[in-house]
């Protein structure tokens, strides 16, 4: 079908929120470099950070093809109110338990999102989604293995992970904050929508957590952290952006 202006706006909105999530989470994951609880986890978080950053770059390139600025300018010069990531990804890395719970929730959502998008009518998205599949598979596998290990570790590790799950869950629900163009995206066969994604995700993470003796809080009992998709952020995002663009902003016109 012929894409109307609203379809294109919806497409951009979708691409921006996915790209911003990946950029910000990739940045956060890279903060574990040199600080992980074991060397192998430094290395794993760094690998995932590189994948996330590479994926965000691919999505910003699609946006560039739709008329947006080049990826470096888009990523390194916007302020927090121009970012569309969810609050979950902008939170500081905290302790390893929080970073792991975030990684578990986010990557299961992203795995399902990109699996859905493999059938998108927008070829650019379906192509990159197929490409990302091979990477995200390892991210969810990594999260699952560690959720399992820590549930069978010590009493402390199990209790800490359950607390981290409880703390990260309302933030994770913010991933599925609906945008203005859900109907248009569905109508054009671009994306089935956040509600469908959220249902699949709840089932997936609930099953996975149950296997290891954890409890997922009831989604109806918690307040999702909304606003990120519309440019309303926590106090943690702008400092992150200031740091990220510190060198680039010395001279945005220079070749670095």
């Amino acid at each position, binding site marked *: 079908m012929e894409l109307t202006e609203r379809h294109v706006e919806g497409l951009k909105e979708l691409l921006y929120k996915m790209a911003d999530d990946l950029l910000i989470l990739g940045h956060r994951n890279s903060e574990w470099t040199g600080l*992980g609880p074991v060397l192998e986890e430094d290395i794993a978080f760094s690998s995932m950070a590189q994948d996330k950053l590479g994926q965000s770059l691919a999505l910003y390139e699609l946006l560039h093809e739709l008329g947006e600025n080049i990826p470096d300018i888009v990523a390194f010069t916007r302020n927090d109110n121009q970012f569309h990531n969810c609050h979950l990804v902008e939170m500081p890395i905290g302790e390893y338990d929080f970073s792991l719970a975030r990684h578990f929730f986010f990557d299961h959502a992203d795995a399902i999102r990109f699996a859905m998008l493999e059938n998108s009518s927008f070829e650019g998205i379906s192509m990159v989604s197929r490409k990302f599949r091979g990477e995200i598979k390892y991210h969810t596998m990594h999260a699952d293995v560690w959720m399992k290990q820590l549930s069978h570790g010590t009493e*402390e590790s199990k209790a800490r992970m359950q607390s981290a799950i409880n703390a990260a869950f309302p933030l994770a629900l913010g991933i599925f904050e609906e945008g203005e163009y859900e109907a248009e995206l569905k109508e054009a066969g671009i994306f089935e929508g956040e509600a469908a994604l959220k249902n699949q995700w709840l089932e997936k993470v609930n099953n996975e957590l149950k296997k290891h003796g954890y409890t997922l809080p009831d989604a109806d009992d918690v307040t999702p952290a909304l606003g990120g998709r519309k440019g309303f952020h926590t106090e943690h995002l702008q400092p*992150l952006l200031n740091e990220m663009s510190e060198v680039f902003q010395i001279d945005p016109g220079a070749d670095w």
Partner: protein
Amino acid sequence: MYGNAYVENTGNNNSLTAGEDPVKLAEFEARIAAGEKIEPQDWMPKEYRRQLIRMIEQHAHSEIIGSLPEGTWITRAPGFRRKLALMAKVQDEVGHAQLLYSACETLGKSREDMINDLINGKSKYSNIFNYPAVTWADSAVIAWLVDAGAIINQLTNSKGSYGPYCRALDRICAEESFHLKYGHDNVVFLATGTPKQREMVQEAMNRWWAPLMHFFGPSDKISQHTETLMKWKVKMASNDDMRQQFLDMYVPKIWDLGLTVPDHNLKKNEESGKWEYTEPDWEEFKRVINGDGPCNKERLAVRRMAEEKGRWVRNAILKKDARYVAPLA
């Protein structure tokens, strides 16, 4: 990066072999002389084991401590290309620590004991990481020239006698050569960029020159290597020889970029083929290596914090009876 581990030059040749079975010692030395590698289960003199543990452990510590000054620039790297490359580079360095701790574990010291000795201040790491990476340009100079120095050191040591260490170094050097290219490319962009960028990189060069000259360890004039350690192929080249090699390979490249080095006495003596330079301040070197450098306290505090914060994770996955003695390389 980053390894340059200093071999301890205590004891004369006799004390290194005191109490060893002369027949076994002769066989051991004959194998090394024939170019064979010593493997974990082979007989080896106590001092050979002790010196290797010290050296490999220091090298491993240097990799993880070295990831701190560079790591702080990952979150500030300008643009996707640099951000991705720096993440991958520093990740490699942490991977090198993993390889090296594993090589060292084959000699009988656990990773946990090594890391405890690091944060207690009992074992050392490369002195160069006690200096701060003040700007983005410092991270570029580190990636180019510290890694260059490390390659010289590591290629030399990879021809040593202990199999697991040599094989780990072969793998490490392959990755280092990419780091060197990354660092050089980064410095080239700054040196040929805007006036601000040029200024940044020249200032970084000025800051890093003294630590780079210190990098290969004290001058041969004040640091005599023992013949036995050379014979055992633990120590492979003199500090001054490696320093000369570094100057020969990199000073012309620095000058080609229009950058200067803060030593007016630096020149190549065409007759001797050797570089002449102002003698580095070895008192400062000693002071810094013994804990009184600009960043020693901060580096160890960060490492200690990471160890403490991660303890509950390690406790949860610890298999108390497992021993990890198979080398990764």
